[in-house]
């Protein structure tokens, strides 16, 4: 295969990954790295570097649209970014210390867990108006637009959310994914922030988190322009199309298909990682 053919195929695969990622809200990174390593036989370190770059592109592109709607809470996001960026930095340093097989094994486990999360019916915690002293001191409580008007909410369990965010950052730095699912888990389940505010704020944070590990990746030579170029342009195009057709698509059916794909890829990554083939 020459470079033109390779670039065209990786671009097409990235468009599909970006499209599926934005339609299901799970992000393109989780399918990209398995796609590049399992099908294109790319070394996992190059794959993780390229994926991380595409994560920044989609997060920043989508956040530009979300911030104007008034759902995302920049104070919650900025405070928690202290945890995600430190985690991302450590995750990226860890990635440069361990072998590709270890990264592939952890990746496989994360994929299997994501498939489980995506397939499970979502339990939504009710948010409330009872203030928590720490969250109030940190000025995190906010309001968001609803059909009936502005709705106020109070944030809870800041230390638990902060710790989970550190973990989300470390996974992002180690695996080159946005780890939006863990971020939403931390905000929606632990801190009891309304779901819509959690998802949009998470999207806002993903780009900054990824930038924290991207610097380390760049300095260590993990970001290859020839590979990152079709991945970034493809994922960006796919996610832009995805957000346009999001309203019409049957997301429940799509999420099911996507979790089946993730389950398969997760098993493959785990097997290859444990067998030392990656």
């Amino acid at each position, binding site marked *: 295969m020459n470079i033109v053919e*390779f670039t065209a195929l990786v671009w097409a695969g990235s468009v599909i990954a970006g499209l599926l990622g934005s339609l299901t809200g799970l992000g393109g990174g989780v399918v990209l790295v398995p796609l590049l390593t399992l099908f294109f036989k*790319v070394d996992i*370190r190059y794959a993780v570097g390229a994926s991380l770059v595409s994560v920044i592109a989609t997060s920043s592109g989508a956040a530009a649209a979300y*911030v104007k709607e*008034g759902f995302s809470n*920049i*104070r919650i996001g900025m405070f928690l970014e202290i945890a995600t960026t430190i985690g991302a930095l450590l995750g990226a340093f860890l990635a440069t210390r361990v072998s590709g097989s270890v990264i592939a094994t952890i990746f496989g486990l994360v994929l299997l867990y994501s498939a489980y999360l995506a397939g499970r019916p979502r339990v939504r915690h009710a948010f409330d108006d009872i203030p928590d002293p720490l969250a109030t001191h940190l000025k995190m409580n906010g309001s968001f637009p609803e059909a009936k008007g502005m709705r106020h909410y109070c944030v809870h369990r800041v230390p638990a959310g902060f710790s989970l965010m550190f973990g989300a950052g470390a996974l992002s730095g180690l695996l080159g994914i946005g780890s939006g699912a863990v971020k939403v888990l931390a905000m929606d389940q632990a801190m009891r922030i309304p779901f819509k505010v959690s998802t949009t704020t998470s999207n806002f944070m993903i780009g900054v988190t990824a*930038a924290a590990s991207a610097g380390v990746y760049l300095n260590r030579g993990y970001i290859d*322009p020839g590979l990152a*170029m079709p991945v970034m342009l493809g994922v960006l195009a796919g996610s832009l199309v995805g957000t346009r057709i999001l309203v019409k698509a049957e997301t429940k059916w799509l999420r099911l298909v996507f979790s089946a794909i993730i389950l398969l890829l997760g098993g493959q990554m785990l097997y290859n990682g444990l067998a030392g083939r990656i």
Partner: protein
Amino acid sequence: MHRFTRWTDQRVEDIIGNLLRTGVIFSAVVVFTGAVVYLARHGQAPVDYRSFRGEPSDLRHISGIVRDALAFQGRGIIQLGLLLLIATPVARVAFSIFGFAFEGDRMYAGFTLIVLMILLYSLLGSSFA
């Protein structure tokens, strides 16, 4: 427009939204330009990403990337575009410090400064660690 007469969260977020969009579009254009040069010159060469060698040192650091891009090398131009992309969230964080400071929120200006230091350390300082 009343809300544009003061520094409010909404105004800061509007500016940040535009900043992010501009950054992504601009970097995508630079990456695409580099892709055209790279594919035109090296398109017929064989591909090899099976084993990890790491990028040459000029594609790992800002000064080397800028030098390669100015020399009109395809890979250098692509890497410059990727660097601009990585810099977009960093610029967003830097701008947020001013936003919080103008709103008189010193606590959050401080939090944001911590995030900016971590990002700058990753981009500029991590190669010496």
